[in-house]
């Protein structure tokens, strides 16, 4: 495995907003085929790390390499699919059908001043089918449930054939009974060869779903396979967030204390 070029390689990455350190000396490697869960409490720098990987923020210290290339030179954004925290950036009254939303995922790949071709509509339908939403192709996105919308956004990310799919808190807004089938779908995508990175604050939910776990609280406090993670967790030895208490009761009130450590 080690001789294969990693999909993401982060070396000594730090980031600060004005005076506050958000990320401290992050080192992280993601290999092809992995399903990495990044867990951490609110304010632990998860979203900042994602924005840096996606090129929405520039690294201040350290480097990020995507597919072996320095992020400053990286031009193949279509290799990376991104599913954002839905509530942040999406106007639920927007008059667009599922088909239109998914087709917008091809915008960059097709390129400026070029138009959709016939084979693109096949790709779009395939991506919609891959997330099990083929019955809703012509429905307005605002009419769907939170979980269905999230599936549509995954289809939008899949339509450009990404090798890496990044999901930011994808189960927020997905009702409890659908969370399981949602993770099933992600696992299937992973088996089909797509590398996945999923950010979540829900530490309990993920260790049996993912192959690797990284615990983030400004710095990386744990990075290993999900099996190692389970062992660490049951032994209760490790300072996974830099503050062992969190792991046991996952109490939000303590998070700020943890952040200071």
């Amino acid at each position: 495995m080690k001789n294969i070029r990693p999909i993401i390689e982060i070396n000594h990455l730090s980031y600060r907003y004005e005076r506050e350190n958000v990320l401290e000396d992050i080192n992280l490697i993601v290999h092809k085929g992995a399903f990495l869960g990044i867990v951490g409490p609110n304010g632990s720098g998860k979203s900042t790390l994602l924005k840096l990987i996606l090129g929405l923020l520039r690294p201040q210290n350290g480097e990020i390499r995507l597919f072996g290339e320095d992020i400053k030179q990286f031009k193949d954004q279509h290799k990376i699919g991104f599913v954002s925290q839905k509530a942040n950036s999406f106007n639920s009254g927007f008059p667009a059908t599922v088909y239109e939303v998914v087709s917008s995922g091809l915008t960059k790949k097709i390129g400026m001043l070029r138009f959709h071709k016939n084979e693109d509509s096949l790709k779009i339908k395939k991506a919609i089918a891959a997330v099990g939403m083929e019955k809703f192709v012509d429905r307005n996105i605002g009419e769907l449930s939170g979980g269905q919308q999230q599936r549509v956004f995954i289809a939008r990310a899949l339509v450009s054939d990404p090798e890496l799919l990044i999901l930011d808190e994808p189960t927020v807004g997905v009702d409890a009974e659908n969370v399981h089938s949602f993770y099933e779908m992600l696992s299937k995508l992973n088996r089909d060869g797509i590398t996945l990175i999923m950010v979540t604050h829900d530490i309990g939910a993920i260790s049996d779903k993912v192959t690797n776990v990284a615990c983030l609280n400004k710095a990386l406090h744990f990075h290993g396979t999900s099996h190692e993670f389970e062992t660490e967790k049951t032994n209760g030895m490790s300072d996974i967030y830099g503050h062992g208490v969190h792991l046991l009761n996952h109490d939000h009130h303590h998070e700020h204390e943890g952040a200071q450590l």
Partner: protein
Amino acid sequence: MISGILQYEFLQNAFFSGIIIGLIAPLLGVFIVVRRLSLIADALSHVALAGIAASLFMGKNFAFFSGLNPLYMGMAFSVGGAIFIEKLRTVYKHYQELAIPIILSGGIGLSVIFISLADGFNTDLFSYLFGSVSAVSRADLWTIIAISIFVLLTIFLMYKELFLLSFDEEYAKATGIAAKTIHFIFIVMVALVIAASMRVVGILLVSSLMTLPVAASIRLSRGFKQTILFSVIFGEASVIGGLFLSYYLDLAPGGTIVMIAVLILLVTVLIKKLSNLRAV
């Protein structure tokens, strides 16, 4: 009016300008509404007013400007205002909506100064404020045609980028499209369409032609393309109906056009209510 259109050049000008505006204002309006930028159209129309007032004032006092169509100066001001709004939005990152009242009041302030300097209102300015069926010149019509060709071509060529940017700005940036450039072209188009529309509907009512048909369309349509289609149909119905009423009742067309648009909006709300009742 039909025979009048065949007979009189001024009616042809007003009628064809109206048909073009009924197409491009709601078309661009769909993108404006879904991006929640409706107020920017209002702000820019007031900046355009300052340009018109400046041009009328200078035309009165300097021979060089008297031959210049005030529309050009209105266009220049409105595009300048659009660029300024974008600058302000980057200065006030956390108060982006602040750019709108700054530009709006700046535009009105400047207009009032030029109007006072030019010794108050005259009928010319009145027609710019509320629209006119008789004041649209052939030169205006050509300018409006040129603007509409630019706008239609741009939307046709950049439809998928504009759609993506409107739907999800953060995602658009993450995919690596030239979001800033596209947004800039978009805002310049808005400024141009405002300048083109003010001759027929008037400066005070320009933004309504960009928003009311869209507001009605969103209630009924499925998907983005259908929203555009219905918006344009409602826009054309308002403009053509409004121009006829304006001609026969001798009213300023701005008023009649906007009132028809309001009527259409009310009807769509009612239809939606009824169909919801039936569904229950």
